[in-house]
């Protein structure tokens, strides 16, 4: 037990930022998740430096080479090659870029749409809220996978089509969470105080409300990013997502699934990479949520 001085002002309190950092670090789940995520991001960014080969160069003479831990494997292709003789490690590394790009872009698009709608609904209430609620209900009642599949099938799949479609479809959770968060903040007295100080509505929304719902935004963003990445993988798996030769992990699984019974690594490697990424994002997001609301709400 430590002996400390008595009154509050003289106790060296850590700064709020430091305290937040400590709370984050106290969250084992967050540290692990964020750590893995950081590694994946680093690998993705450094892919051109790290990848031993061009991820697109095919060599039909060296197809389905197993990874190095198999007898027939070689260090030339540490994770082996795929059915067209492309270096698997390089493709997995570049695949991280695609998954992350999809996660970030989809969240950006849907985040902007959803947050705007949520903010407006939560702040203004009444008719605006009704309209937004209707939009959200409508959106929620459209099965995402089906609509995404259908649109991609119609328009034709490509990375940007997938991003756009998912981005335009996945704003619902942002809207819902931002709406309730805004409602909550809006009823707080500091908003009333700012109003009483004569601040304009825009100013209040941007400077008083928005900063206080950012934590929720970040939590939703991480979880939505994970879900977007999974959805892309599912679309690509069904052949209606990103198109070859892009090394999307979902597409790699889809391409490799025919080989799964005899060359399991072909599906296991991108599958595990995908699972690891989702795992890391979810863990980080959960940790974030626990830090923001320590009671651990769902």
């Amino acid at each position: 037990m430590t002996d400390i001085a008595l009154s509050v002002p003289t106790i060296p309190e850590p700064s709020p930022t430091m305290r937040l950092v400590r709370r984050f670090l106290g969250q084992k789940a967050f540290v692990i998740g964020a750590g893995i995520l950081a590694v994946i991001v680093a690998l993705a960014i450094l892919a051109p430096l790290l990848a031993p080969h061009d991820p697109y160069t095919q060599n039909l003479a060296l197809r389905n080479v197993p990874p190095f831990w198999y007898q027939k494997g070689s260090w030339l292709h540490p994770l082996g090659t795929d059915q067209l003789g492309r270096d698997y490690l390089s493709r997995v590394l570049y695949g991280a870029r695609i998954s992350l790009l999809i996660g970030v872009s989809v969240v950006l698009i849907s985040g902007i749409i959803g947050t705007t709608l949520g903010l407006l609904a939560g702040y203004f209430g009444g008719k605006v809220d009704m309209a937004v609620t209707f939009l959200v209900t409508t959106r929620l009642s459209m099965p995402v996978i089906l609509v995404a599949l259908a649109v991609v099938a119609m328009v034709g799949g490509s990375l940007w089509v997938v991003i756009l479609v998912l981005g335009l479809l996945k704003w619902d959770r942002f809207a819902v969470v931002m709406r309730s968060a805004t409602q909550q903040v809006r009823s707080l007295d500091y908003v009333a105080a700012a109003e009483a100080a004569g601040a304009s509505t825009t100013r209040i929304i941007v400077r008083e409300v928005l900063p206080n719902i950012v934590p929720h935004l970040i939590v939703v963003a991480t979880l939505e990013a994970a879900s977007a990445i999974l959805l892309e993988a599912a679309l690509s798996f069904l052949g209606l997502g990103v198109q070859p030769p892009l090394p999307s992990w979902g597409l790699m699984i889809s391409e490799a699934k025919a080989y799964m019974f005899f060359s399991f690594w072909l599906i296991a490697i991108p599958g595990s990479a995908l699972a690891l990424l989702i795992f890391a994002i979810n863990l980080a997001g959960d940790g974030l949520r626990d830090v923001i609301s320590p009671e651990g709400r769902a």
Partner: protein
Amino acid sequence: MTALLEAQGLTRSFGVSQGMFKARRTLHAVNGINLDIRKGEVLGIVGESGCGKSTLARMLLGLLPPTAGKIALDGQDIHTLGRKGMARRVQPVFQDPYSSLNPRRTIASIVSLPLEVHGIGTAAERRKKTLDILDKVGLPQRFADRYPRELSGGQRQRVAIARALVMNPEIVVCDEPTSALDVSVQSQILNLLMDLRRELGLTYVFISHNLAVVEHIATRVAVMYLGRVVELAETEALFKAPRHPYTKALLTSVLTPEPGAGIPETGLGLAFPDPLNPPPGCPFHPRCPERMAQCSTITPRFTEHGRDAVACHLHDPELRASTPRNVVTLNANTALKQKENS
């Protein structure tokens, strides 16, 4: 004395839904209040939880548009003043020092927000003004760059007061400014408010449910019950000779630290004041120990007694001498009035 801020027939209703399967109902949070706030006075407003005190305060601040009635500042409808115009002259201090400060801003930035909004001075001038006002409310300058979470409740409430005063307003509307604080801190804040008033010539609207505090600080007191003012009187007069039975009950219920005095009997029944289901006639009649036959049918008028006023049949000279014919007329009148209000 002339009224600085004046409310006439002020009414505010909310549509509330009571669970999914029930229809929305209208709740009259504030129901036809007439009130004048005179320059330099402290108008205390007391009443039970849910009687509409905060709603009234928000309307006086221009934060909530009334459903009916109007508010005038110096004779000018506050409608025409606009948000900024109001802000320069009327400022709030809220009850909860935790939710009234934006947790993501520093103390200095919170206090200087009104200055920024009104584009007053340069950044340096604003800073200086902020530090000055912090000094005035008794906060050392080192707090300026801290965040609200680092402050105690009393300190936060000082910040809220500083923010309210930084634009030199004339009226400060304090909505239960001390009810979230411990008694030892409450007295600090009350002292501060009194000092500032003396120093700056402020006018206060002071809302509280603590009668002892109101008696201490207010010069005039309005007692509210279910959205209406039932009694309005100079503090001394009210505490010495309360007229309305509800005011009496309130006063009886105050537990002063007098050992051995025992717990008083208020004489109020079990009936619960439900703003969604206001009783007909006098809203207080179901709990009133002195209720009469007409109380359950006729809404009492607000009758003046010198500088004070009360809404109770017991104190309505006309009614006391009334014949049945009068009752009928009154009844018709009130019915009409109620219609206007809803």
